[in-house]
């Protein structure tokens, strides 16, 4: 009797251990199938992401090509046309005797010059070839030098080395350029600065500092009440996600323009790794 029970318990234990093993096989089947499905899902997901990204890149390329085409056509057609108007006006002025007509023709020449300059700014903003901070800083530097020399103001320009490797859209370039243009105009017209220093750094945000020395400076709150200039530049900066900071110093004025640079806008070798 006891032998029979012992024998039975032995087989019972064998069965009891076999059942979990069978179950384990089922669970292994389930997990392997599940892992396979998970892998397929991840491959499909990556494939979809890649297709979406390539579609976006294609779209961006099409837009850039269109921007470049418009910029080229504006430069070739409108620019050339406006230049011709300016030269014809200049040459006609000398042939005219009527003072009133001469004045009007001179105005046409001046407007044409101004239009050529404005259009050149638009073309520069549209052309994707200049979609980097280096292009922006170069353009600002050239403008500031011409403008401040015309007004006999001492000026310095300084930019750090990393600047050349940052990408920036045409919209941001144009807005920053127009903000700096307005600030330099204000410095010449209102503050009476004797020396202007422009510094551009990128660590990690793009910061352009304009330091005016020898002028009277201004209180931003008072300026806001007087005109639209300050309101417009602040609006431009907020449109592109940037900030403007004014600080009155004993020797003049210090204005900082700050623009955050997303990590993807840095070129591969210069991406900032945050710990």
């Amino acid at each position, binding site marked *: 009797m*006891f032998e029979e*029970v*012992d024998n*039975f*318990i032995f087989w*019972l*234990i064998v*069965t*009891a251990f076999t*059942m*979990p093993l*069978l*179950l384990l096989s*089922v*669970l292994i089947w*389930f997990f392997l*199938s*599940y892992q396979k*499905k*998970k892998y*397929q*899902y991840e491959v499909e997901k990556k494939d979809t992401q890649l297709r979406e990204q390539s579609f976006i890149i294609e779209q961006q390329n099409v837009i850039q090509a269109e921007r470049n085409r418009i910029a080229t056509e504006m430069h070739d057609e409108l620019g050339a046309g406006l230049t011709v108007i300016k030269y014809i006006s200049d040459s006609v002025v000398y042939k005219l005797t009527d003072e009133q007509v001469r004045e009007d023709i001179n105005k046409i020449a001046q407007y044409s010059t101004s239009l050529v300059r404005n259009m050149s700014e638009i073309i520069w903003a549209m052309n994707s070839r200049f979609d980097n901070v280096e292009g922006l800083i170069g353009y600002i530097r050239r403008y500031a030098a011409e403008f401040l020399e015309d007004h006999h103001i001492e000026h310095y320009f300084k930019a750090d080395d990393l600047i050349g490797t940052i990408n920036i859209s045409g919209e941001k370039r144009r807005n920053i350029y127009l903000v700096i243009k307005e600030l330099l105009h204000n410095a010449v017209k209102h503050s009476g600065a004797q020396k202007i220093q422009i510094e551009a750094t990128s660590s990690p945000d793009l910061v352009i500092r304009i330091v005016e020395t020898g002028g009277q400076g201004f209180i931003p709150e008072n300026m806001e009440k007087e005109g639209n200039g300050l309101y417009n530049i602040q609006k431009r900066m907020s449109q592109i996600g940037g900030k403007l900071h004014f600080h009155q110093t004993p020797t003049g004025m210090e204005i900082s323009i700050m623009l955050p640079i997303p990590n993807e806008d840095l070129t591969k070798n210069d991406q900032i790794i945050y710990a």
Partner: protein
Amino acid sequence: MVPIETLLSKLNLYDIINILSFLVVFYFYLNGKKSLPYFGLFLFILIFLEVYLQVYWSYTYKYNIFIYNIISKYTIVYYTLVYYNYFRNKPWSGWIQGLFFSWLVICVFMNSYEFDTIKFDKLSYIGGLIFISGLIFMYFYDIIYIKQYKNIMNDSLFYLSVGIIIFFAANFPILVFVDLFITNAKKGGPVYSNFIQLGNIFLSLGYLGASLCSKK
């Protein structure tokens, strides 16, 4: 009343895991998160039956098989509710209802025909567990072949399914030959008890996993 010392001395590891699971479900419930349908209530009644009533019955009447008969059927009913809830939109979900009511009829028949408070109603329980195992395999099949990929690590039902299937596999032979074990308690008792304990621990871990996957 059962003295608290007796209750505590009879407390098993799986009972502690069940209490922990209930507390987790209750905590998540207070934070607006839900796990399986009526899971908190299920655990509360289960803990009451396993921790108090079976000890009380044993203490008062010197046997507790009757309470285990109730627990076994109670768990099958709850598992059916959970899987029916999962499959309710399937065209064949009516089969779950049909099979469940058939099982219920068998239970009533078995208990009317051979009602005995000191005998474990193993046939109804084994029948119920085979039925639930079928539903679990359907659930696995659904995840692998029918549904779109989803992360099962956040799925309460996955943990419950694994817990049940391990419990069933570990205890199936014991449940089949339970009478023999009881009659030869001296020889088979420890093995019987250890396997039941081990299976219950896996089942309770399944409950704990399910309770930790509560979502808003």
